[in-house]
């Protein structure tokens, strides 16, 4: 799926960006997990969003999404797990590759402290994507750390490949396949030498060849390591430009205040900046 502007995140910032992009007649593709998984969807009542007092978070999200859809925004449900910045921007989302000429990052709060051993063993037994790496661990013991609502589904996929799956999470998962053992734990550390040999979960050692860390979103800096950050948030200027050319960021990922009104304004600004950048680029290429 190709678009002028690829938007990662379907919250207020991402949807406001899509609406602004469409109003400038640019194609916009929003990659997002379902709205009901957003923390905002659990807000019972919002009274500080101008002009629309008293809506629930879920209703506000629905309203924004309906608006973006009515404007002609394309949507791709899922989570971006890898990103390539070359000849535009490309991300993998499940079995799809989404592409855009410009990129807007709006994943919400994506600051996540890494677990001990996570960075060290990334690519050597630690994976963020069961679909991508599961086949390499067929018939071997693996641990799934479920921190996203769809993690039980990914665990089932790994089991279907023949992996011996242990599922761990701080809360009882919903929809975990019968036959997959569950351990409640909230503190994790990855152990091994050259490659992963075990997951330590609240002090208990779970021997495994791989640990799949399935979070709600992959942090922007994991997708695009060249992004500059400030106190853990994506660093942007007033036009919401990041340190990477062609990439803008908006919403909670850029820092406080973590408010809908701020996210919407930033999303709008990011999209207008991206549109302007695309226009300048087209004009420069026409001169050549």
């Amino acid at each position, binding site marked *: 799926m190709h678009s002028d502007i690829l938007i990662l995140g379907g919250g207020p910032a991402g949807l406001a960006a899509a609406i602004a992009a469409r109003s400038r007649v640019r194609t916009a593709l929003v990659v997002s997990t379902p709205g009901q998984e957003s923390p905002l969807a659990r807000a019972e009542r919002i009274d500080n969003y101008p002009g629309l007092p008293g809506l629930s978070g879920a209703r506000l999200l629905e309203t924004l999404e309906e608006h973006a859809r009515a404007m002609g925004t394309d949507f791709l449900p899922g989570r971006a797990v*890898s990103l390539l910045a070359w000849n535009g921007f490309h991300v*993998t989302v499940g*079995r799809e590759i989404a592409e855009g000429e410009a990129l807007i990052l709006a994943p919400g709060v994506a600051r996540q402290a890494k677990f001990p051993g996570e960075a060290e063993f990334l690519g050597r037994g630690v994976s963020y994507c069961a679909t*991508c790496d599961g086949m390499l661990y067929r018939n071997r013991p693996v641990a799934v750390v479920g921190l996203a609502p769809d993690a039980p589904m990914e665990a089932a996929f790994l089991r279907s490949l023949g992996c011996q799956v242990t599922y761990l999470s701080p809360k009882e998962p919903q929809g975990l396949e019968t036959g997959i053992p569950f351990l409640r734990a909230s503190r994790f550390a990855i152990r091994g030498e050259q490659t992963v040999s075990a997951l330590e979960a609240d002090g208990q050692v779970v021997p495994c060849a791989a640990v799949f860390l399935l979070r709600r979103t992959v942090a922007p800096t994991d997708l695009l*390591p060249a992004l500059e950050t400030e106190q853990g948030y994506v660093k942007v200027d007033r036009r919401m430009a990041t340190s990477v050319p062609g990439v803008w960021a908006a919403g909670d990922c850029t820092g406080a205040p973590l408010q809908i009104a701020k996210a919407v304004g930033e999303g709008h600004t990011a999209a207008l900046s991206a549109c302007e950048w695309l226009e300048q680029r087209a004009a420069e290429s026409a001169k050549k």
Partner: protein
Amino acid sequence: MTDFTKESFQAAIAGPKPVMVDFWASWCMPCKMLSPLIADLADRYEGKVVSGKVNTDDEMELSYQYGITAIPSVLFFQNGREVQRIVGVNGPDAYTQVLDSLL
């Protein structure tokens, strides 16, 4: 780009030129996404670097031998030994920096 088998792979890394090898699989979407960039680099460095790919499903022994635990993994060889490995999807600079350092 050459599709390496165990035999052609060993012959390539034993040669005098640096070698870039992309370990991939047909079911791996990040591999599919990265593949055009690796092919482009192979063209740009043609004559200076030997480039090829290894299908991890077809060449499981090679994958096991080199401890491939995540794909895509791009391995670089010089004088028969692995000198660098880049796991996952990266932009072109990550690969050209290694290639340039080997020339």
